[in-house]
């Protein structure tokens, strides 16, 4: 009694209680944070994971601002400096870049999971609509971000974006100069303002509406997401590209989430229709879904039309994205290499989407009795197994973190990122084994209690 460790713990506990009591006066109590005690499917909390990746982007982006210079000439050089000279600059830039990819990916997965499970119903229309708008803002945020490098690839994207804005009916000619200003020297600062402040602010405001009140914080999954960002950075380090030079032509393909739009533009279809109107129709399709699909049924098995529509949109994205990456190097000039034959493009697109729609629709209309597969038997570890597994994971983590340090001293930052990513994956696994063994222990305790109780 009264040992220093014990009284210190009491002080910390009291401070914690004191704080929690006073937090009840804030809005934080509105949210119900759930930390799952056992494995739950990550599909259910992809939104929370997207928000966590957004937070990672905010932090890494804020640090990148310490070195980045929004200037036509210096922008590229400052990114080069970050990548090649600033300590951990390579790591910071890769975290920011791959987190942006992951955020787009998670947002798309989140959208489709919610779509197929019919979550836009049951009074969730506002959540759904704000979510679709957030998705569009995420793409715009990523677009303005990779343009800040001012390399050839960025200039291609800026060129396409400005062309699209100019070609917009009525508003275009007065809207484009707002982004362009007096020239590229203005444009880079304006894109910077959009990227680091205006768009993230809009996203935060929308997120405040979009967040449901119950949030699942799954630490093993978060650890795995961080690990995935590091592993991606290690395996596919972000490139610097070639500095924009108005006397050199290069073939560049936009970032993967924009190649679909790029494919439409390359068919020679009227610019505004191809690059803005068709993508807008696609977004509108998702926006109106909750107001069209009014049935009471939630499961994708019971809604053949909307399930088929969802599958068709996935096929549409896949086909156009593949076309966007396609370059025919057998042709003589870059212009011919990038040209996509419209009949071939729209033909393949039409056939594939319609076929996938019909196939899915027929498959789910057949009303066949679905036999759900038996859920896999959960693996239960004994306390001693759990202990040795955790110890083994811990030792592996020490080894991978050591490998990460060692490769960094060898000036191999991408190897270093890879090993750190593996370490985070292992940490995720370790966290899962930990919560599993706690659960097993609790159950065993409950059984012992029941046995102790006198029989009646």
């Amino acid at each position, binding site marked *: 009694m009264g040992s220093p460790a014990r009284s210190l713990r009491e002080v910390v506990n009291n401070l914690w209680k004191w704080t929690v009591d006073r937090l009840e006066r804030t809005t934080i109590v509105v949210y119900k944070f759930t930390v799952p005690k056992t494995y739950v499917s990550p599909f259910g909390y992809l939104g929370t994971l997207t928000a966590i990746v957004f937070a990672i982007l905010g932090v890494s982006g804020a640090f990148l601002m310490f070195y980045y210079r929004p200037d036509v000439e210096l922008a590229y050089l400052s990114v080069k400096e970050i990548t090649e000279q600033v300590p951990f600059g390579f790591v910071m830039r890769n975290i920011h870049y791959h987190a942006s990819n992951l955020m787009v990916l998670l947002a798309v997965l989140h959208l489709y999971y919610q779509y197929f499970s019919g979550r836009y119903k049951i009074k969730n229309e506002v959540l759904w609509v704000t979510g679709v708008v957030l998705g569009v803002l995420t793409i715009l945020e990523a677009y303005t971000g990779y343009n800040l490098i001012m390399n050839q690839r960025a200039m291609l994207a800026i060129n396409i974006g400005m062309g699209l804005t100019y070609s917009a009916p009525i508003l275009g000619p007065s809207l484009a100069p707002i982004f*362009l200003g007096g020239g590229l020297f203005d444009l880079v600062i304006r894109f910077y303002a959009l990227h680091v402040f205006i768009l993230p602010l809009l996203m935060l405001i929308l997120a405040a509406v979009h967040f449901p009140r119950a949030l699942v914080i799954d630490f093993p999954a978060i650890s795995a997401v961080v690990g995935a960002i590091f592993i991606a950075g290690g395996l596919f380090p972000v490139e610097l590209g070639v500095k924009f030079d108005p006397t*050199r032509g290069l073939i560049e393909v936009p970032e993967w989430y924009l190649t679909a739009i790029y494919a439409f533009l390359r068919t020679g279809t009227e610019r505004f229709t191809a690059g803005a109107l068709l993508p807008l129709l696609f977004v509108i399709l998702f926006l109106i879904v909750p107001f069209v699909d009014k049935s009471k049924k939630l499961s994708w098995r019971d809604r053949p039309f909307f399930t088929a529509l969802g599958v068709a949109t996935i096929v549409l994205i896949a086909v156009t994205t593949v076309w966007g990456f396609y370059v025919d190097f057998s042709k003589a000039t870059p212009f011919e290499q990038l040209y996509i034959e419209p009949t071939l493009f729209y033909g393949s697109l039409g056939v594939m989407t319609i076929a996938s729609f019909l196939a899915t629709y027929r498959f789910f209309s057949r009303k066949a009795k679905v036999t759900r597969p038996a859920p896999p038997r959960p693996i239960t570890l004994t306390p001693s197994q759990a202990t040795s597994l955790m110890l083994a994971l811990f030792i592996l983590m020490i080894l991978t973190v050591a490998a990460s340090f060692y490769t960094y001293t060898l000036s191999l930052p991408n190897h270093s990122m890879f090993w750190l990513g593996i370490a985070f994956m292992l940490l995720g696994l370790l966290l899962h084994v930990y919560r599993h063994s706690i659960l097993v222990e609790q159950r065993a305790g409950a059984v012992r209690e029941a046995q102790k109780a006198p029989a009646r």
Partner: protein
Amino acid sequence: MVSRRSYLRSILVAAIAVAVAPFANLVSFFYRSNAETAQRQKIANLKDLSPGSAIYFPYPKTGDPKIDNDPFRQYILVMTREGELRVYSRVCVHLWCLPTYLPQKGALICPCHGSVYREDDGVAVEGPAAYQPYPTNALPMGRIEVDGNGDIWLVGVEGRIGYGREWKRIPPRDLIRRV
């Protein structure tokens, strides 16, 4: 009878409208005023040019090398082989490279993807820019004045830099004035 309450409410709404109205002007904040036009700038004298020659210059010129070197401020003054004066924005309407004048072809040639613009009207006739639909297949053109001393002044720009010009609407000849 119009109720007193709805009468008061109309006054309130009108008052808010009056307070907000001045902010409509704020839109001009987003446009850089010296961006494109309205600056009268001397480019050269007729003596400096001969048929089939060109002069490169920034417009509107500020004296700040960073701004004056911006691709979107690069222009070219051409005296065509027939002795006509033309000013074009140098930003290729395809992917924003900077074309140069080739007197022997009587055209501006883009170094990146080989777009060819006629010296007479700045319309693309070859290369990727030529495949772009009207009005995105022509270079923006300068409005010029030539005074009694032979000084050539640029007074404005027709078209949108890096995008195109509605070249069927205003013939090139109408953009040159002798004063």
